[in-house]
């Protein structure tokens, strides 16, 4: 249970949001060139980090906009929130 500070709407309960999984996974630039193994990496393989993770969230029951979040998955503490296209504030 945590509060999420939507960059467009402000603080809301996280039940209004939908998690979108790992962030910064780039869609292959030349899909026709990809091997099966590279497709598997892109489609299925995930870091699934215990600790600081970069992820996407959607304010599904609010403004319906997507944004990025840095969150500690070991205790659900939100470290930072930033808009799509912005550089992550932490490395």
């Amino acid at each position: 249970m945590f509060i999420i500070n939507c960059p467009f709407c402000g603080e809301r309960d996280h039940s209004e949001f939908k998690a979108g999984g790992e962030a910064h996974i780039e869609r292959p630039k030349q899909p026709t060139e990809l091997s099966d193994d590279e497709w598997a990496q892109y489609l299925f393989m995930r870091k699934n980090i215990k600790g600081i993770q970069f992820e996407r969230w959607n304010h599904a029951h609010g403004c319906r906009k997507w944004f990025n979040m840095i969150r500690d998955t070991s205790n659900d503490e939100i470290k930072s929130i930033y808009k799509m296209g912005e550089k992550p504030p932490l490395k």
Partner: protein
Amino acid sequence: MKNRYSIFSLIKNAFSYHENWQKAWKDPVPKKEYDAVIIGGGGHGLATAYYLAKKHNMKNIAVVEKGWIGGGNTGRNTTIIRSNYLWDASAGLYDHALKLWEGLSQEINYNVMFSQRGVMNLAHNLQDVRDLKRRTHANRLNGIDAYYLSTEEVKKFCPIINTSPDIRYPVLGGTLQKRAGTARHDAVAWGYARGADEMGVDIIQNCEVKGIKRNGDEIEGLETNKGFIKTKKVGVVAAGHSSVLANMAGLRLPLESKPLQALVSEPVKPIIDTVVMSNAVHAYVSQSDKGELVIGAGTDDYISYSQKGSHQIVEGTLNAIIELYPIFSRMRMLRQWGGIVDICPDASPIISKTTIKGLYFNCGWGTGGFKATPGSGDLFAHTIANDEPHKLNAAFNLNRFVSGDLVDEHGAAAVAH
């Protein structure tokens, strides 16, 4: 040699006020080297060790567990056992496990309280009805007992269900697997631990793996908080923490770890003598031998290792429970908890070799691993001992995410994941 548990040993020990029971397993310090090490002392890991020693004569092995045995998802699930899966590969896997359950208490001389009280799955809309009928036929073709029930038959089998057509999600029918049921989850871990320990397996608790040492593409050993353990074979059975261990070995897995919650009510007199699951409204309920209602809720959609879930998940489940069972509306809930489940994109497990020689993974069981415990252990032991999968787990390899040959049980598996 372990003393056998029986009615006579129970009577004998009663005379000494149950103070002289033999220790069920030792508390060894790790040896320098093992033929194989299993990471994870849950039901699946301990079963793997048991079958490695019993069927494959690998006795110089260890199970390392970072906490205490059976303290993870083994002790947190809702103990449901069934094998009514849609696809052939899954049916083979889960029914293999169910057949082992049927003789398990005798085999390991430990009462796992396996109770074949039946599992009923409800249909709440037309698509549910079609899916359930299709699954019933598929199950029968695979030799799994399955029946389709009308609304009246559902009511007859479990009279406390509200089958009124006026509720939000009316009961339109259901399926029944009579061989399915429940078992005592802790006893499964303890029974396998005792059996494995008797055959010489070292069960090392409070032993956390900090690193997996590789020499090129071969396994050399494990760095743990109790020192370095040399071994050529490592079987990882770490459920929600599988990705953490895979990262140590430089591997990626197709898993996401999410919180799954369950709760129990105050104990009451026997009221529900079967297991009822409802996919569409996501509620399932059974009653433990102590009398508590055991209720399974759903997973949260975000990745977390915190073993805490969201309140609205529990609320949604209880809304559904109260509508389906108005008689429970004033029950008080006693405890609620979460576990971390490792979910695969196709909602099927991985019991597989990896690209690293001597490293094996048994993971991805998601929300439904408990039912497979004996089968999972048996097949994983086969895979580790022979460096080849058994034909029953060949489809559940890691390479299926590259080849595209997925075992898509999402929604087909009689429960929402």
